[in-house]
């Protein structure tokens, strides 16, 4: 069994192949040996984040039950106090990076967000105002709160606030295609330019941004997959135009992605391969235009493969399977038509795959 190269061996190999300069090799070695960076995988951050969310919700209920926080003004004041404390204490903790302090501050910050949002909602009786406040808070915390998990959550909160604002303005059906197209385009852009942003000073921010954009895209996809339930008892019906425009936007995002990959691999997009991929993309976009979530899963999957990312690929695969199941419940097309479309498209794709397979074996 071949053993993977250690990190040291990998750096040495890169230096020997003249991919990196000897000075860079020595610097990298020294940094590795110091090893003060956090290598923890995503599920450790998820565990910490989940714990913080649950704790902050429990504290919030505690505050409401005991009357510590009573009335709209006290919600706003206590929320603001907690947020200010979290921001200030985070600057003190930043050099030390104590896990316990980071977790506690995350709980304090999230509790502050919730309390302030509830207070403003009670004061103004307007979710639009709450959304604007959340967007403002998110920007402040992205800029000044030095913690990766919180930055990620702030970016997500910003996206969700945009969606709520759009729903409050009764413009969600119109804006959804725009939001999804922008998110899909941003996801493609940030992931394809990953190396460029990794070299920048704000590398940590871009790292969180690229994941948050993908999660935001999936949230929008989930909203589109079912009738949107908003508020208490009301629903927002997505029109056929919403789905069609979204499908067109996603088609162009996928075409841009494929064009970039073909250019990187020095393959002419007018070649048989390029044209086949374009036709397959158009076909799949048309087939699943009423469940754009499926196209979104495919975009994320191709992005994951192009960047060799082992988080995107399984999530995109699971998402694809789930949204294919949701397609079953699409009532605008009969089950017979859906089944025939799927079988024919499956056969066509399989035949194309077999042709490529045989060509590849021949080469």
């Amino acid at each position, binding site marked *: 069994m071949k053993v993977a190269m250690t990190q040291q061996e990998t750096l040495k190999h*890169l230096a020997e192949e003249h991919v990196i300069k000897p000075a*860079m090799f020595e610097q990298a070695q020294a940094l590795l040996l110091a090893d003060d960076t956090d290598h923890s995988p995503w599920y450790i951050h998820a565990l910490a984040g989940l714990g913080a969310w649950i704790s902050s919700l429990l504290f919030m209920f505690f505050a409401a039950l005991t009357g510590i926080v009573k009335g709209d003004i006290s919600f706003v004041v206590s929320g603001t106090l907690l947020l200010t404390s979290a921001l200030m204490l985070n600057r003190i903790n930043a050099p030390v990076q104590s896990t316990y302090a980071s977790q506690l501050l995350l709980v304090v910050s999230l509790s502050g967000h919730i309390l302030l949002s509830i207070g403003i909602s009670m004061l103004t009786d307007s979710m639009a105002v709450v959304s604007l406040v959340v967007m403002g808070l998110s920007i402040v915390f992205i800029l000044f709160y030095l913690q990766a998990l919180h930055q990620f959550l702030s970016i997500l909160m910003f996206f969700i606030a945009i969606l709520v604002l759009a729903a409050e303005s009764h413009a969600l059906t119109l804006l959804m295609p725009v939001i999804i197209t922008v998110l899909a385009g941003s996801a493609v852009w940030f992931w394809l330019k990953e190396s460029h942003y990794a070299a920048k000073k704000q590398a940590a921010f871009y790292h969180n941004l690229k994941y948050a954009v993908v999660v935001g895209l999936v949230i929008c996809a989930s909203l589109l997959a079912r009738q949107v339930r908003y508020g208490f008892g009301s629903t927002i019906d997505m029109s056929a135009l919403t789905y069609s425009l979204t499908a067109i936007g996603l088609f162009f995002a996928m075409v841009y992605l494929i064009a970039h990959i073909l250019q990187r691999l020095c393959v002419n997009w007018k070649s048989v391969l390029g044209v086949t991929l374009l036709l397959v993309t158009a076909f799949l976009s048309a087939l699943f235009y009423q469940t754009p979530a499926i196209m979104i899963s495919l975009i994320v999957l191709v992005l994951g493969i192009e960047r060799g990312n082992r988080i995107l690929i399984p999530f995109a695969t699971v998402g694809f399977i789930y949204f294919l199941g949701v397609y079953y419940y699409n009532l605008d097309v009969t089950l017979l038509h859906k089944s025939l479309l799927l079988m024919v498209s499956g056969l066509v794709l399989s035949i194309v795959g077999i042709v490529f397979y045989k060509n590849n074996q021949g080469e």
Partner: protein
Amino acid sequence: MSNRYLPSNITHDARWLYPLVSRIPLSGETFEAVLLKLGVVPSKSTWQQWLILLLLGLGSGLFLTGIVFFFAYNWEAMHRFSRFTLLGAGVIISSLVAFWQGTKTLLGQLALTAASVLTGVLLATFGMVYQTGADSYLFFSSWAIAILPWVIVSRFQPLWLIALMVANIAIITWGGATISQFDLFRDDTRQVTLALLTLNGCVLVLREMTSLIHISSELGRWFPRIIVLNITALVSFDIVRFIVTESYLDAPSLILLYVATLVVLSGYYLLVRKDLWVIALVMGSLILTSTTGLIEGMESSRLSLILFVTGVYIAGVTAFAAQCLRMLSKRWNVKDNVQ
């Protein structure tokens, strides 16, 4: 390391490089060249393999889904022989393709998977047409047994997962059919839990034993991780149920089973396999059960006190768990670094 199922770019772990890039500093172009050299960013030949995998996987997946949708539609209108002919032909054609291509190729493995799924559909059709009156568990167990030889020869993890899911459903439906007043909160459903644990445990042991021979890459870990998730969820649910219902029947054996399961999993995946995901799952289970115990223990206290104490406890214990996991991750990375 190579994985014979998936193209090679996905087996290289370059996550440790990203935090270094801005600190060295490396330019964006140099870093991209590094990723290309390490094979993380796929080359033309790697992308060719991926393209074939995507087209065949997507194609076969859509085709199979179409067949399932087809049989869900207006089933009554079709004559029973048409149904059997179509399904039977599907099973035979898929099996022939698998035989022709062999189980060492992706096409052969996908064909075998299709044959396995269609076998289940065929059995379901038989039961529906002839109204055999068989219980659900008979259908699922027959399906699992029928495809077992294919599952063994396929050496294809997605098919193993399908077979395992079918077998698990067979046991659960068996519980529903044979245990009177089947209720997840009754004690006699522990037979079902034990049966599920035994099944998943045996599959996990087999998988880990064979993995040393066949699959060596990190990506091959998803299947055993899913099994561990099943096992952990089962024993955790049992303990939570025990705490919530205050059902003290066989309490010592229940606690012993829970502790033993976690100890075995932790021991193996800490000392032998070094899989952080499993350790995180074990910690998650301990957090869940201990929090449930804490809330039950404070049952007679005021709600506000329960909320406060639980909030503090969860914040503290998740921070502790995250800290332990980070330390482990660092130690395993450093160990790899200095070898």
